[in-house]
């Protein structure tokens, strides 16, 4: 069964190679068509495989043995089960739409730039598919770092830009930060891999999961925690980095320096959800280890609420969406952390639709506003950009959990799990749901409603071309209907499809209470958001108070990291390690030994006077000493 999976990967590989090697010489339309065509072919491949998966026909496919040394061996092998199938469909489908959108959005780039963009974009989807289709943790790590590379390349796509006044960062800086912060997470992932290998002797999913019970009752490894606890916790460190949770979320807001299609694809719809996929994929381990309720879900829910405060105060269109993404990822971790793996994955999917859509509308707005992202200079855009506005409203309603739109189903399932297991998590989640509605409709009211705040920009604003609005419409339809169509209600089609892979846990009875609470808070948030922020002038918006100042300054987390970690390491390396230890101590000893030899030579050479009488005297003295030593004198 090589054919279908080859269909997923090979077109993208071809796209990467052709655009990557020849790109600068290809006409722009060709680069774009190649990139989109490769992506479309890959999406088609993902669709073709669906019936095979539900028929149970596709197992693991070993392509070649990647590396082997001693008892260690790992294959390049693909796994195509229900979970990877769903992930592949989401990834290729949303990516395809965004590839098309980008042809319009990036049309101002030159030949070299456009082909470079599509090379990176195709390479990203390729890596993302490796991540979700690999049948072992080593291959997952390959995809994991691969998407990190593409994220680096795409955030820094406009590499020659400098810091603009008023901005906290700029593309090449943001790209570097993203990669390094992710590497910190990857460090945990890597150690988890080593731990799994020493525990199970393999890295393959099925082999590990079927042996997981063995490790469960094993001896405590460190600090009284069993090895399985460490494995899952360290894996989660990786997830924290990739999926931008506390304390490693700081790279994601900066990543908005990348082109907006990149933000939509990588930093909303696909890559950042990799951590959620990882936990869902490892559900057997998490269920046994019990790390979910004690670690994953709490981190998720705190992140969800914390990030919402920053989304509520940001004046940057994409900034609001970035913090919203961090917050929504937190929800997904609450789902998978509390054993509601299906709910977590469902929210992953609906979020890919509505957040991808939100970012694309943001791109449409930026396109119209000449790259001005400050919402204080917007206002009244609904009159200029009707399609963008309507699709934005649909997405905003979906994320706010408006009844029967997609977000409603997935968020409700997560909050239900929280309600059944932990009251504090539920209430924090419900409040965050209210905040979600509030910040989305604040954004809507400021940017799209009321009067324009910058007449010149407003006059020039225009609706985007069809190549950009068409993906908006498709995603809007998906955001609105996915819940009902795909069966996201309890025991619906979606959950049944995934049932084999994700071991559903049921805690207590189903109840409508959490749904009513969250919908009520959501509706309240929407109304309050519109009422407060509609028609506000710039001065009124700027009028800060004690409550909003801190979250608007991003709680000074970046500054704290800089002062507590980055600066000290840097300065200590420069002044202590290099200038002092290396130059003075270590090299000093080396030079001192050489100098000592030199000095001794300098003294001894005085003996070589060339005067025969001196030598005779020395011989005599030597003879006397010798005789004395021998006891003859």
């Amino acid at each position: 069964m090589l054919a279908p999976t080859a269909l997923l990967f090979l077109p993208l590989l071809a796209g990467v190679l052709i655009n990557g090697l020849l790109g600068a010489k290809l006409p722009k339309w060709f680069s774009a068509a190649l990139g989109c065509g490769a992506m479309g072919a890959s999406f088609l491949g993902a669709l073709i495989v669906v019936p095979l998966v539900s028929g149970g026909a596709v197992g693991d496919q070993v392509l070649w043995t990647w590396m082997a040394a001693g008892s260690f061996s790992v294959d390049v092998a693909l796994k195509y089960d229900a979970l990877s199938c769903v992930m592949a469909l989401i990834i290729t489908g949303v990516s395809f739409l965004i590839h098309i959108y980008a042809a319009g959005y990036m049309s101002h780039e030159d030949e070299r730039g456009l082909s470079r963009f599509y090379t990176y974009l195709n390479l990203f989807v390729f890596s993302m598919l490796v991540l979700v289709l690999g049948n072992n943790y080593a291959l997952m790590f390959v995809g994991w770092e691969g998407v990190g590379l593409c994220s680096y390349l795409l955030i820094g796509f406009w590499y020659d830009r400098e810091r603009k006044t008023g901005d906290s960062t700029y593309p090449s800086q943001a790209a570097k930060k993203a990669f390094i912060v992710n590497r910190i997470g990857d460090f945990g992932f890597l150690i988890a891999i080593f731990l799994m290998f020493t525990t199970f002797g393999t890295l393959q999913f099925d082999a590990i999961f079927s042996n997981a019970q063995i490790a469960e009752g094993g001896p405590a490894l460190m600090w009284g925690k069993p090895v399985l606890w460490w494995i899952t916790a360290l894996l989660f460190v990786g997830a924290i980095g990739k999926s931008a949770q506390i304390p490693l979320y700081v790279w994601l807001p900066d990543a908005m320096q990348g082109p907006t299609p990149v933000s939509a694809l990588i930093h909303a719809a696909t890559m950042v959800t990799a951590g959620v996929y990882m936990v869902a994929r490892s559900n057997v381990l998490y269920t046994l280890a019990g790390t979910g309720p004690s670690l994953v879900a709490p981190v998720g829910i705190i992140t969800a609420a914390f990030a919402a405060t920053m989304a509520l105060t940001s004046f940057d269109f994409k900034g609001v969406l970035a913090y919203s993404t961090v917050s929504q990822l937190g929800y997904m971790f609450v789902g998978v952390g509390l054993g509601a793996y299906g709910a977590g994955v469902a929210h992953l999917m609906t979020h890919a639709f509505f957040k991808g859509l939100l970012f694309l509308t943001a791109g449409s707005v930026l396109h119209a506003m000449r790259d001005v992202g400050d919402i204080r200079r917007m206002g009244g855009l609904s009159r200029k950009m009707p399609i963008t506005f309507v699709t934005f409203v649909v997405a905003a309603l979906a994320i706010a959990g408006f009844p029967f739109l997609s977000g409603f189903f997935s968020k409700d399932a997560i909050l239900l799990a929280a309600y059944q297991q932990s009251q504090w998590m539920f209430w924090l989640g419900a409040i965050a749901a209210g905040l979600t509605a509030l910040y989305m409709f604040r954004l809507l009211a400021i940017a799209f409603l009321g009067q324009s705040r910058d007449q010149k920009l407003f006059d020039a604003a225009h609706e985007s071309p069809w190549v950009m609005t068409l993906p908006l419409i498709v995603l809007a339809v998906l955001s609105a209907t996915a819940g009902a169509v795909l069966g996201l209600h309890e025991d619906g089609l979606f959950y049944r499809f995934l049932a084999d892979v994700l071991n559903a846990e049921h805690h207590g009875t189903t109840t409508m209470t959490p749904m009513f609470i969250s919908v009520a808070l959501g509706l309240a948030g929407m109304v309050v958001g519109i009422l407060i922020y509609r028609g506000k002038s710039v001065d009124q918006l700027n009028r800060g108070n004690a409550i909003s100042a801190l979250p608007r300054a991003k709680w000074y987390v970046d500054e704290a990291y800089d002062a507590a970690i980055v600066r000290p390491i840097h300065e200590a390396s420069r002044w202590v390690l290099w200038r002092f230890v290396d130059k003075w101590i270590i090299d000093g000893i080396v030079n001192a030994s050489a100098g000592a030899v030199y000095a001794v030579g300098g003294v001894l050479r005085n003996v070589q006077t060339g005067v025969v009488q001196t030598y005779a005297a020395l011989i005599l003295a030597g003879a006397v000493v010798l005789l004395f030593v021998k006891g003859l004198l």
Partner: protein
Amino acid sequence: MNLTLVVFLPLVGAIVLALAGLFSHGVADRAMRDNALKAGALIVSLVTFVLSLAYIGASPDPVYRAWIPSIGSVFHLRMDGISVWLFILTTFLTPICVLASWRNTRSVPAGVMSAYGDDGGVSGERGVAGFMVALLTLETAMLGTFVAYDLVLFFVFWEMMLIPMYLLIGIWGSPGTRSTFLFGRVSERVYATMKFVLYTMAGSALMLVGILYLRAETGSFDLTLVTAHAAEGFDRRAQYWLFWAFFVAFAIKVPLFPFHTWLPDAHTQAPTAGSIILAGVMLKMGAYGIIRFCLPLFPDAALFYAPFVSVLAVVGIIYGALVAMVQPDMKRLVAYSSVSHLGFIVLGLFSGTNAGVQGAVIQMVSHGISTGALFMLVGMLYDRRHTRQISDFGGIAKRMPAYAAVFVIVTFSSIGLPGTNGFVGEFLILLGTFATEGRAVYAVFAALGVILAAVYMLWMVQRVFFGPIRHSANEDLTDLTLRELAVAAPLVVVVFLIGVFPKYFLDRMDADHAVSDLRKAGSAKEIVRVSPQEGGSGHGSIEVHAPAGGH
């Protein structure tokens, strides 16, 4: 293909070039003469490379001839699964060095020698010939070191490497007008050259004592016999001394923290080709020596000192990375990154696991490719701008897109991105170390180096390539020429080849395997020995023995 022939082919080429250089003295067309000499060196090194490729399939028959019977030394050359990749790495990098030196080597009339010397290029009437002769002689010395199977022969090749490298750095190194006041007033280049040679020789002296002791103990210099003797085990106390006699020599060469301070100096002063060879091959000599001598001959001592050596390795990994981070000079940065990367190799060698040792060997090759490529790329920039200061650049990706692309690929290979060569070695080393009992925490600390590698490399890339162009001198930088692209391309291909199909390289390492399927999962207490088989056609092999009372 006869091993002796391949080893000495570059030396023969060097002699021919030297004669050609002498007799073409009167040729008026300097450029033509220079190009002919360069082409000659290129052909010789390429032929050597092609011939050596035959060894990928199977190791050649060992060469065994009487050499100095009076002292019991034999001319014994032998290749196994470990030396084969290092051997081919050497033959692969040498033509690249010739091509990388194409632009900045040319001869000028004797009268303007000193003035021209400050160009960082080649000076002197016989500049080109001398340079290429040194390079080819160095190749023979390196190849010989990797296949010598007699202690005296090994020592001869080992010391033979020093002289050409001494000349390459000392004559063709950086112009360096600044001087240092240590030991009189010498230029930084001369200081670095002397430091490199004297430091290495200090280590070699200890090794020579060890070699003589082994001769007294076993009655032979032939490594086959010495190893057979060692299998019965030397006296423990003697092992502890002998281990250090050899290990210090190798640790200096590696260089293992804290013996590393000669490296940044030597690299900064060396010409591009010198840096490529130094980082690509010569540093591996130390690690190779550890595999070939320290581990198999003194296994008890190696096991005893493994934790201590591993601590030094881990310190080196983190220390090298942190110091690399704050370097203002690109070459110095890459040099300190080598200290960090070589720490991984030593860590893997002393892990005592197959994964760790094989990972270390792969890492030796990988580091040769990646760091060799980095030095080459820095050299290309130096050719254009005559500076290596990071702060002199910025935004040059705009002017040199192809160069930037290659540089970024090599950077990520150096960072150890999966799919590139850098990942395989580091991953296996860390895995092997982690699996060694009591060594897991070493692997955890070493893995911090993986984070730091991203920090120092990406920070450099950002400052050199990204942002707007700040210095007007960078405005008219030209992108890679066809020649430069041709030199860079094979390196990039190998980066992915090893990264995607490492099994091919790993399998060859134990292709001559005698024993031992290690698939007893979790058993990580094997000691790796390299031991010869009886009989003429036997190749060295990695054998794994479980220590008494293991498991």
